[in-house]
């Protein structure tokens, strides 16, 4: 155990995996909170799947596997997919869930097609592009972690500066509009920051599992607090906890894949929070309900008199 903690700080590979996963958890938790509160959890899923064709196109156009180039490609198609969803919802009679499904499957399908095409082209350089499907944190190098940290700082900087605006936009966009805030542009900005969070997660958990890193820490955090600011901090902590513990488990247990372990850690936090969070936990809720049933007694029939006797009977 001590050795593992020592490695966490001094082992090059483990440090990169843990740091990369922690940054992902931090940024995903904060931006996922807004997505969950705006009932747009699945938007994250759609836009992360929509990132796959971007990775392939960026590789085909430039011929490099430099992570920043591929991430920018991912960001562009992810962002286009999101705008397409928002446009479909605004301009057609197709509802949001259907629009999400359409964009997700079309973009992901194109991505898989391009990926297969690249893999069959016998290019010696192509190896490992498919790691973006489920992530491969073990191959993270320090430069990539630095890239993730820079992208994450930019995204979190926006959230910190525009906290009040994003809160109002999430709670009551119409009211925000009457106050003069450009709700459509703020909406696009907040969604674009979610795209950045997805870019950070592509190497660690991949396009398929990324949505869980947006939804799980936020859903868990909501259980513990009734204040948005605290929810953001908790979601960030839960995300980081899931990231680091997932990385440690994957390294210590005969090299299990990191991405799925991070997601499983996040899921454990969600399950624990759903069951045991003080005010909203299912366990306490069930106990409360059972207790209340035991205390249930007939309501008073007349506004005064005759009730105290029956109340005493009921409780004895």
């Amino acid at each position, binding site marked *: 155990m001590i050795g593992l903690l020592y490695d966490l700080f001094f082992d090059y590979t483990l440090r990169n995996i843990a740091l990369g996963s922690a940054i992902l958890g931090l940024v995903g938790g904060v931006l996922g909170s807004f997505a969950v*509160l705006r*009932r747009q959890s699945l938007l994250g899923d759609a836009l992360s799947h929509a990132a796959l064709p971007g990775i392939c196109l960026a590789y085909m156009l430039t011929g490099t596997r430099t992570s920043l180039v591929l991430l920018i490609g991912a960001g562009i198609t992810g962002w286009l997919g999101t705008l397409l969803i928002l446009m479909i919802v605004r301009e057609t009679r197709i509802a949001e869930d259907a629009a999400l499904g359409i964009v997700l499957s079309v973009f992901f399908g194109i991505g898989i097609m391009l990926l297969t095409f690249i893999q069959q082209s016998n290019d010696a350089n192509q190896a490992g592009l498919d790691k973006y499907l489920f992530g491969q944190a073990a191959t993270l190098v320090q430069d990539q972690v630095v890239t993730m940290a820079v992208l994450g700082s930019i995204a979190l900087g926006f959230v910190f*500066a*525009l*906290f*009040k*605006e994003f*809160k*109002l936009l*999430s*709670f*009551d966009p*119409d*009211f*925000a*509009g*009457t*106050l*003069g*805030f450009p709700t459509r542009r703020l909406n696009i900005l907040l969604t674009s920051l979610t795209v950045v969070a997805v870019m950070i997660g592509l190497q660690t958990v991949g396009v398929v599992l990324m949505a869980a890193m947006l939804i799980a820490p936020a859903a868990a955090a*909501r259980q513990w*607090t*009734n*204040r*948005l600011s*605290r*929810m953001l901090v908790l979601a960030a902590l839960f995300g980081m906890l899931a990231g680091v513990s997932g990385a440690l488990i994957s390294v210590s247990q005969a090299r299990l894949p990191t991405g799925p372990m991070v997601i499983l850690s996040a899921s454990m936090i969600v399950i624990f929070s759903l069951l045991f969070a003080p005010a909203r936990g299912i366990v306490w809720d069930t106990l409360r309900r059972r207790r209340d049933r035991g205390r249930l007694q007939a309501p008073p029939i007349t506004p005064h008199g005759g009730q105290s006797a029956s109340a005493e009977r009921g409780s004895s």
Partner: protein
Amino acid sequence: MEVSSSAPGGDPRAAAPVAITDLTVAYRDKPVLWDIDLTIPEGRLAAIIGPNGAGKSTLIKSVLGLLPIAAGNITFYGQSYAAQRRLVGYVPQRGSVDWDFPTDALDVVMMGRYGRLGWLRRPGRQDREIALECLRQVGMVDYAGRQISQLSGGQQQRVFLARALAQDAQIYFMDEPFAGVDATTERAIVALLAELRKAGKTVVVVHHDLETAPDYFDWCVLLNVRLIAAGPMSEVFNLDNLQRTYGGRMAFLSEHLAPGATP
């Protein structure tokens, strides 16, 4: 040239808190509001009355720039909404937001200050004092720290009213504040309307209940896609106009409003 010709000194529209000219709003090819001309005079409590689908909420939302308008012109004291934003307060329908949002009553009321704060600045101690005072005005100061999902429907409505008060506006638009509230809240809203009137504010309220309308309001706007009639409650609110507003559903109305009339 447009400006100088449209704002002569004696034009009553230029001085009115709200002046709507030729307003048409459409959803695709279906008109929701058709050619509305409407002026609300200063210091009035105006009720917008009409059947479901008459465009009452649409009227408020398009006036506040939340919906695109197909044609028309809307001014507040002679100027555009963008220029007069700070003079206008808004109470949306209670059902338009998710009340399970992680925030408390005081925080929601503070949102009324955001327009004055502008970008980046956070609400300070003074905004907090103002928000608490507004909660006090609607009888909700004891619930300031309460998570908003733990408030009753009427209490949530009063939080929304307090938020509009925190905007410190001259003109208030309220979308069905009386819908589904308890008797305590109804009394609180009526008292608040009276206070706003005493303070010289202009208030425009979408209202559903025909029985209470003449008691609560002194100005009446009858709407059914087109403007049917608008003016002082005593002159406009009569069976003839209501019949023209509600059309076939009048059997119900005449029972309520004219018990002496033969059905």
